[in-house]
């Protein structure tokens, strides 16, 4: 009898995990692949993440953002792996001045740049990429991002601000085609000037 009830509970737990957590494996894989750029490393990371999530699924609060919970576990798993492996590059945590990072703005057509949003994102420092993806692609809140990356919410906000500014700088033509930064355009470094002006207020967000 006891064995049957335990078996039943296991089945119910699995059914719950299968319906709530497992559907996000594609999202997690994409993010893992973006972070590692290696298929087998990304698969390993996703596998470890889901194994860890399964073990601690009793701690997941139903009705909350399961994807954010999984991503948080994935970052912890990744962090653990980074500590034990020198295969992965440790990214400097220092926020660098935008002016030092904004690339020159070559003349490109809107269409060409439209295909390069991801390439532009890839050119940003890693810590800016992460917050932009977690916010704008994964739709995580500032608080969820802060928890996932184990950084203060204020840092999330400032990184997001700088990251988006850099991205717009990288995609200047594309951004202009959608009207971003048109008001401040008055010189050759229009977007950079606009970003610099915004940067001073980023902490007030």
């Amino acid at each position, binding site marked *: 009898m006891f064995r049957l009830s335990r078996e039943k509970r296991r089945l119910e737990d699995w059914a719950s995990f299968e319906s709530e957590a497992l559907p996000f494996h594609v999202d997690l894989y994409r993010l893992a692949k973006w972070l590692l750029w290696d298929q087998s490393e990304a698969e390993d990371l996703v596998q470890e993440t889901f194994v860890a999530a399964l073990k601690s699924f009793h701690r997941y609060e139903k009705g909350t953002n399961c994807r954010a919970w999984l991503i948080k576990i994935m970052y912890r798993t990744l962090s653990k792996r980074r500590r034990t492996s020198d295969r992965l590059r440790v990214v400097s945590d220092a926020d660098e001045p935008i002016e030092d990072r904004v690339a020159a703005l070559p003349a490109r057509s809107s269409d060409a740049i439209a295909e390069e949003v991801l390439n532009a994102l890839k050119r940003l420092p890693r810590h800016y990429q992460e917050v932009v993806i977690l916010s704008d*692609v994964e739709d995580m809140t500032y608080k969820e991002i802060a928890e996932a990356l184990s950084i203060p919410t204020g840092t999330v906000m400032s990184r997001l601000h700088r990251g988006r500014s850099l991205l717009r700088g990288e995609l200047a033509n594309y*951004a202009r085609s959608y009207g971003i930064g048109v008001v401040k355009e008055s010189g050759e470094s229009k977007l950079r000037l606009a970003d610099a002006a915004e940067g001073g207020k980023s902490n007030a967000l």
Partner: protein
Amino acid sequence: MHCDDFRVIADSYLSDELLIETNHDVIRHLDSCANCRFELAGRRQLRHRLKIQFNESAALRIREGFAAGLKLQLRDQALGRPRIAIPRFAYVGVAASILIAVAVGILGLQSLRNSRRELLAWTNLTESAIGDHRECAVEHRLAPTIISLDEAGRTYDRAFANLASAVSSEGVLPAGAQLLDAHSCMFQGKRFAHFVVKYHDQIASVLVAKVDAPNSRAPRPEPGQLVKGFDANSYRIAFFQTSKHAGFVVSGMNEADNLAIARSVAPALEKQIRRAEENVEARAFKW
């Protein structure tokens, strides 16, 4: 609110991260400022484009077969044992057609010995491979000797650890073949990785086991070489080897189908096993 102020908080507005009062200020400003409406639409569009490109990027696309392997592994772990939802009739199929042995009996084994003495001399694994795996596949699913491949990988043989993913990967099995079950079982004191595959409505077993002491008298196939199957009372067997493992495909299928499975799975299994063997050797070397 001024345009400069709006630009600072425009992204937070899009992310719905502002206080209600600030939201109202933003909305009021947008009502009266066409430039900022244009700017906001642009930022929204940029985000939308980023999300679409990220989600549709071919470089970030998940490998087909990975999800199935992951699910298999997690389900094994969640249920504490390998449990695959094979319909009852499939078990009957397994019992009826696949795993030979005791039913085949001494006569069958004798004919094997007669026809492929050199192979049997190489290793007695062949006998185990065509042995009564029916027990593990059908009747004794709760037996403690049956465990998941990952558990077997952790406990007995590292080479078993990622075999399920290897076999369930896209393109590993022949078109139309279906992986019904993957587990690790014991037979005649030997631990096997055991995959049950359905192909053309028949069942085949793919088995992998460690070679303890290969018989030096027997001809050993070259690495990567697949030894063509032979018959044992209408059952077909094909096998391949790595330095420390041997793999078998056993079925009641015709020779072409049995070989098709063997040719499909052998490279993937061999690659995975070799990698594990090399890792073990590398660790041993380090120590």
